[in-house]
């Protein structure tokens, strides 16, 4: 799979280059908002940096990592060559061109709209076109994933698709649904505004369309982590997957319930009735189900591994787990962060509590802990796990890998716990600086400095991560051949079609989306609200 390895590595290195740059920006942002750097830079610089940080972390790191990992899974789990390799490379370069366009627009100060756009703020059209190219690249990836699994199924009639591939295709199918919202927003509203074809923009509609994408996009980023939980972690722990069916159900539930729930990002928005907000809140509750299934299944899988390694008693198996292996350690740390972040998310989903934490640092803390913490630490673990396969070389010692993972965990907790606390005290987000001369705000200062310290630890960890991968390319130790994917305790012989494909679930997603988003979108067409005047961003 020489060519496929190059394909995967190309995607991963674009992802991690963006990650390293964005990590530096993140710390700079924390510094200028802290009492230590309060006089540094202008709000213009700050928001430009936030835009670049968000685009790099949320669009470039994720999309390129997920594409690279998907290609890897398609080749290794299906054990057959990747169909359409030329298309895959075309997608890669399309994405790279998109990233360059977007980064140039941000650097010129023409795209300071943050990565979630915020119409009627309008950036240079090159910024949006760049992001459209990245999304188009990911669509090519989606099609290739679906085709790869369909080809495999044709060659293996009646056989259950390998769980890793099933999960990857679930993510691809979900991503196709997910991007419809933001694509409609860009094509019909934002790009015409940025070209000057229209002078006003219906902000209620654009927020609604973005909310369609906004929650599911997080699950797009999350699913590779869950794929690793189910397929890589149990094997790395030396055990077996407790239940293959639980895995399939989990990915299906993510597909079904990540989409019709985005309105919980609009709880405080006036453009929707309470009834529709309630419906989507109720559906959001069901998003916790696949996570709870996963925590149960993976804990059970780890218990099997721990007991096989001689663990006794109710909790003795935890001690005997091979925590020195990066994948096992990362899974444990990810679960801790998932626990804190998950409970924070349930708070966000409560209407009354949402009113209190809305637009405060609590929200920033929540998504950094869940995505930057549990998800990205699994990206690290996945990279450490598959890098020997891609490069043919072995890590000389797992010690720097473990150090890096621990630093990431500690840094993320130190950064986000004070953020949550500050959010509860009313510290607002999306502001460039705080006036620490104000006695109320002065009280926040020490906590802001603590979270900055967490940010610095994260930056050290990010640099160590890049170093760990870079040195592997020159490692003298050849890769040791070992199985990658975990076997289930009861490997599936035959599974119902519903657990082996997505036809039924696509129909159900359609039904849910029509119910949850049909009227909320249609109301803007039937009775358009007054448009907001387009505001073009410019430097400074």
């Amino acid at each position, binding site marked *: 799979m020489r060519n496929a390895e190059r394909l995967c590595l190309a995607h991963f290195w674009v992802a991690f280059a963006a990650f390293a740059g964005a990590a530096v920006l993140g710390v700079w942002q924390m510094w200028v908002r802290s009492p230590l750097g309060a006089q540094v830079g202008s709000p213009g610089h700050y928001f430009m940096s936030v835009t670049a940080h968000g685009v790099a972390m949320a669009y470039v790191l994720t999309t390129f990592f997920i594409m690279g990992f998907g290609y890897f899974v398609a080749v290794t789990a299906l054990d057959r060559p990747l169909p359409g390799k030329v298309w895959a490379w075309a997608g890669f370069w399309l994405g790279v061109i998109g990233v360059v366009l977007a980064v140039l627009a941000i650097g010129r100060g023409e795209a300071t709209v943050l990565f979630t756009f915020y119409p009627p703020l309008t950036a240079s059209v090159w910024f949006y076109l760049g992001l459209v190219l990245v999304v188009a690249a990911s669509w090519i990836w989606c099609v290739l994933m679906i085709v790869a699994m369909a080809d495999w199924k044709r060659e293996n009639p*009646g056989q259950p698709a390998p769980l890793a591939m099933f999960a990857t295709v679930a993510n691809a199918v979900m991503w196709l649904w997910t991007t419809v919202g933001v694509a409609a927003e860009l094509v019909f509203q934002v790009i015409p505004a940025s070209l000057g074809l229209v*002078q*006003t923009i219906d902000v209620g509609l654009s927020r609604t369309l973005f909310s369609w994408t906004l929650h599911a996009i997080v699950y797009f980023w999350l699913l590779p982590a869950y794929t690793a939980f189910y397929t890589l972690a149990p094997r790395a722990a030396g055990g077996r997957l407790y239940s293959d069916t639980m895995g399939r159900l989990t990915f299906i539930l993510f597909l*079904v319930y990540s989409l019709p729930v985005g309105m919980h990002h609009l709880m405080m928005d006036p*453009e*929707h*009735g*309470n*009834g*529709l*907000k*309630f*419906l989507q809140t*109720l*559906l959001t509750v*069901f998003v916790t189900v696949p996570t709870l299934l996963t925590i149960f299944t993976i804990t059970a899988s780890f218990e099997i591994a721990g007991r096989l390694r001689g663990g006794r008693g109710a909790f003795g198996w935890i001690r005997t787990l091979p925590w020195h292996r990066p994948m096992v350690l990362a899974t444990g740390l990810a679960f801790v962060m998932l626990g804190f972040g998950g409970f924070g998310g349930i708070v966000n989903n409560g209407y009354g509590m949402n009113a209190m934490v809305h637009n405060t640092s609590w929200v920033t803390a929540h998504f950094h802990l869940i995505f930057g913490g549990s998800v990205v630490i699994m990206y690290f673990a996945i990279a450490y796990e598959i890098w020997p396969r891609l490069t043919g070389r072995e890590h000389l010692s797992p010690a720097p890998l473990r150090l890096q993972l621990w630093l990431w965990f500690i840094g993320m907790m130190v950064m986000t716990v004070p953020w949550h606390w500050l959010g509860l005290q009313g510290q607002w987000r999306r502001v460039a600086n705080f*006036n620490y*001369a*104000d006695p*109320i705000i002065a009280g926040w200062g020490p906590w802001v400095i603590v979270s900055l310290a967490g940010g610095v630890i994260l930056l050290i960890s990010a640099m160590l991560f890049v170093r760990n991968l870079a040195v592997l390319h020159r490692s003298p130790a050849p890769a040791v051949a070992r199985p990658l994917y975990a076997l289930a305790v009861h490997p599936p012989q*035959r*599974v*119902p*079609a*519903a*657990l082996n494909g997505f036809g*039924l679930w696509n129909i*159900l997603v359609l*039904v*849910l989306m029509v*119910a949850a988003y049909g*009227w*909320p979108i249609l*109301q803007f067409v039937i009775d358009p609200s*007054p*448009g907001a*005047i387009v505001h073009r961003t410019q430097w400074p």
Partner: protein
Amino acid sequence: MTEHRQQPISEPHVLDQPWRLWSSIAIGGILLLGILLGVVIIPVVQGRGAGLDAYTAICRALGILPGSPAQPQPSTQFPATPVSQVVWTADVLQILSNADPRRGYEKVQEVCVSCHGEKGDSVGPDFPHLAGQSGAAIYKQLYDYRTGSRTNPMMTDVAKALDEKAIADVAAYYAAQPKRNLNPRSLGESPPNIVQLVELGDPNRNIPPCAACHRAGAAGPIETPILSEQRTEYLVAQLKAYASGERRNDVYGRMRTIASQLTDAEINGLAAYYRAGFK
């Protein structure tokens, strides 16, 4: 069903059908429950407390009618009267951007020059400087005089004689004039409590920082006037008019809320501060 069409349990469709059926029922059931609770049961029950009939409550829950089913809204039956007739629509912005300063200059020579000066440097303490003022701010004030949202013995008649296009032209002309340059040596230091009001406001009195909207040589949102280097006497008069409610064309009553909290000494201090060009 005939005997030979029966399949053993391991055959795919025997395995598949219950999954299709029960997962559809489960997901559809949850959806229906959500719709029933969110759109029917909860709003109808809440609506009773708010004195709403079931139909109104359901329409509000759907967003067809404005307001929440949980509260009596609107709180008053009196129709709201806007404090200004100016709406920043795309059409108005188009009129502003198509305004012609040369035509504006002719109108200025005809009407405005005797008080506001040819270049926008006013001739007396009661008349505001207009040089370098935001065009949108001048437009709004003239329009408000025209519609009666703001009144002044002289300006009301002047503005009523101008049509919307002429207003935009005059605004564009004065906006294009260079800002005044004061001699910094003639300006005194501002007392710390005034600097504090400008930069931090006073949360205890619900006063936001002046500088949140009125900054050095700039202002926002769109209709906000630039106050730096404005005449002290004019600023004092306007703050007092806001405080007493005599002037009321400020959207959301923002300036009335603020000005009514200020002492006379603060009003004088702020006016002096802004006269100094917002150091």
